[in-house]
């Protein structure tokens, strides 16, 4: 299945892109986050996850379907 990933703010800078697509076997959100973040130090960046534009609870187990979009949203501080 194909999943679109969108990154914002500092996360777009860390991943050096604001959007990518990945072809994956059946996967849930937690495992997908593990996969995309391996090799990166994201400990200092808080972020929320949205599936198809809806922000999910970090404790929620969410399975992904073909065509889903996952967005990683950090808070911004500047003003």
């Amino acid at each position: 299945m194909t999943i679109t990933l969108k990154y914002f703010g500092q996360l777009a800078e860390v991943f050096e892109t604001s959007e990518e697509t990945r072809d994956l076997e059946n996967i849930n959100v937690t495992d997908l986050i593990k996969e995309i973040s391996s090799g990166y130090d994201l400990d200092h960046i808080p972020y929320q996850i949205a599936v198809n534009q809806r922000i999910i609870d970090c404790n929620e187990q969410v399975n992904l379907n073909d065509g889903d979009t996952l967005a990683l949203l950090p808070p911004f501080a500047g003003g």
Partner: protein
Amino acid sequence: MSNYQRQIILPEIGESGQKKLADARILVVGAGGLGCALLPYLVGSGIGRIGIIDGDRVDPSNLHRQILYTPDSVGKYKVDEAKQFLLMQRPDVMIDTYSTYLTGLNAHKIVEEYDVIVDATDRISSRYLINDTAVLCNKPIVYASIHRFEGQVSVFNYKNGPTYRCLFPKAAEVPNCAEAGVLGTCVGFIGLIQAQEVIKVILGIGDVLSGKLIMYNTLTANQQCFEFTKTERAEISQDFFEKSHMRQDVNTAGFNNNQPDAGTFIDVRELDELPRVNFNQLIEIPILELNQKMNQLNKFETYYIFCQSGKRALSAAQQMYDAGFNYVTAITDGAEVIANHNN
């Protein structure tokens, strides 16, 4: 003809909407890039009373984006300079200025005077403070923030809707404009989206961004909206507020060898507690005598407070901070550690 004729003829506003604007009291927290963008438009719309709180003075590095200030403003309080500009724009607007920072100690008193709170600050900790105060005072918050060319806008605590803690439950500081860089047009643009939400909240028109986070990228002109809901975990009580915000104003630090040259140490233990510590600049004031002896100290000096474990030091530092001492640090190490370093 009324100055507001061109907006009064909008069916969504009319005479009754204009009266709502005239009756509205808005607090703008932060007179930086966002504040400078939204303030003249809020004033222009006919809002009756606007409070502005910011303890910063104008710095030359602000001028490229904080358009209420001129080179003559440098070194002066932002709130005073903003007020001067806004009164020229509309002499009949009522502007309250607070040349201080919003803290756990002053937040309730200030926030409860207003109907809508505008979060235009540049620190995550201030955003939690605004959120928690506004929730306890039952006021809606119009939020915006910037990271480089991207902006976020949302409305919290609107008609019992979700809050900043529902959106971002994990607190951690992230870079602000001074650290990450910012372009004036970007912060100005996001500030105007924020101003528009303020007006929508006052008038009760359109779809207010409650439970919705707008992410706008000013380089790609791409806007996306994310939905979020109220979470039970983010319940805010008076007790939670005090734990989160009342003690954070006091600096805490471990002991280091630079501190004895930078300020005066205050040992708040009883005089018979061992080991005793010796510094050139050391005062011994047992914590129970602190209140009575505090007036012998200088509020503008730097003080490092320590005790046997760090607990009394924190409490003493809080007492001094509450009494107006701004440069107080509670040492988290106990006397044993300090004495060992010292010898």
